[in-house]
């Protein structure tokens, strides 16, 4: 399981995480939602120490690290428990799609090159990119890059995969293919923590939804509990403003369509 206890983090005296507690069970898919600046990305990045928390306990799988005393070796041990999919993909620019997936297997897991490439080919096939294995990131679309990013995260077979807004910087046309890949992994009962703004996707994929605001976990529950019967005022307000903005976008879209083709019904 993942267990976070009293996690705190400040940037230049601004407290971003004010004592986060939450748990993820084996094979559970937890989606974290919340307004921008609520600390959800920071929280996720604290789990693998891309941001060093000021204090708190982090347990992932069979490793527990106390943030206030963690040494480099502790951090490395903890990092081996997870892998991450990034908002901006962060594919290794000097490596082909195949090398991106295989590199950590070779240098970190000490796997034989031929085995690493074989495993990586299988993963690229799983995300539908068998024909792109020799392409460098620069020659891949955003959606393809993100699918390579997911294959890379899967390759090291971590205890859990962390998704940091995996579709937020994608053109709308690529969002669907990436979400489908994530949904398929979720079906395999992989432990996953996903920070996202895609509410429909969150409802579909999540076993549990965590709503964060102002550096706290405000409310958590099943997707039905959070989206249909939120208890906390802060949650209700957030979901309402999300629905309003979606409705506005919908309306704008329809208006544009009518403008472009006035004859359409």
């Amino acid at each position, binding site marked *: 399981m993942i267990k976070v206890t009293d996690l705190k983090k400040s940037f230049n005296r601004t407290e971003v995480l004010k004592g986060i507690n939450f748990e993820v069970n084996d094979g559970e898919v937890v989606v974290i939602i919340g307004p921008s600046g609520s600390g959800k990305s920071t929280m996720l990045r604290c789990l693998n120490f891309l941001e060093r928390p000021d204090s708190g306990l982090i347990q992932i799988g069979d490793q527990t690290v106390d943030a206030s005393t963690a040494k480099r070796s502790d951090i490395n041990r903890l990092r081996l428990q997870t892998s991450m999919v990034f908002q901006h993909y962060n594919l290794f620019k000097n490596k082909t799609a195949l090398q991106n997936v295989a590199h950590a297997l070779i240098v970190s897991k000490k796997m034989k090159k031929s085995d690493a490439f074989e495993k990586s080919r299988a993963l690229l096939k799983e995300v539908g990119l068998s024909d792109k294995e020799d392409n*460098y990131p620069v020659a891949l679309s955003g959606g393809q890059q993100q699918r390579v990013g997911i294959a890379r995260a899967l390759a090291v077979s971590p205890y859990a995969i*962390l998704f940091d807004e995996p579709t937020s910087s994608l053109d709308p046309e690529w969002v669907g293919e990436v979400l489908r890949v994530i949904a398929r992994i979720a079906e395999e009962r992989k432990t996953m923590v996903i920070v996202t703004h895609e509410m429909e996707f969150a409802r579909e994929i999540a076993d549990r939804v965590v709503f964060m605001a102002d550096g706290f976990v405000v409310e958590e529950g099943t997707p039905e509990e959070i989206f249909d019967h939120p208890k906390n005022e802060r949650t209700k307000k957030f979901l309402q403003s999300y629905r309003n903005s979606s409705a506005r976008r919908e309306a704008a879209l329809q208006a544009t369509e009518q403008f472009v083709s006035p004859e359409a019904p």
Partner: protein
Amino acid sequence: MNFDLGYMIEIIPELLKYLPMTLYLAITSMIIAVIIGVILALILVNRTPGILQIAKVYISFFRGTPALVQLLLIYFGLPQLFPAMNEMSAATAAIIAFSLNTSAYLAEIFRAGLQSVDKGQAEAAVSVGMTYAQAMRGIVIPQAVRNAIPATGNIFIGLIKNSSLAFTIGVTELLAQGKLMATANLRFFEAYLAVGLIYWALTILYNWLQQWYEYRIGKPYRV
């Protein structure tokens, strides 16, 4: 006009015998400078307390004083402090001076090269379980090298030409031989022009090599 083209062409083979010395000075110094430069750049990027201040003073000194002064300090000055260094040959002293001097410039170039690599690259590397060293070696440094190559090439070209300073402490390299031939035959223009042309040709050759290398390591970044 008193210019003897035939003479100039005639002395070029004789001058070329001293090209290996020039290349030896430049290439050996460059290799050592790159090693020191990488270490300094890593110190600058990681801001290791204590060592950082020492590195900064080192860089400031070697960039802030003339290469010729450094050369004289090392060849004539150091043996005064450390008698054991009396054994040091002029060529060795020149290599030490050029290495230290060049490394200070390279440190800043490499630091900028490392910092120009998107932070997300190292983050992605450690997020899939690589250590800091593995992330640097496989991901960050190869990309930094590409960013640093043009400026590093400039430094190397400068070093090839600066190696002529070694003649002031008695190393017989290209320029020293040219000066010798110029005074022996009182044909200054021909001799020094021949020396100049050899340096020029050398940098042109090097430039081709660099262009080929840049093209090769640029492959991942071309669509």
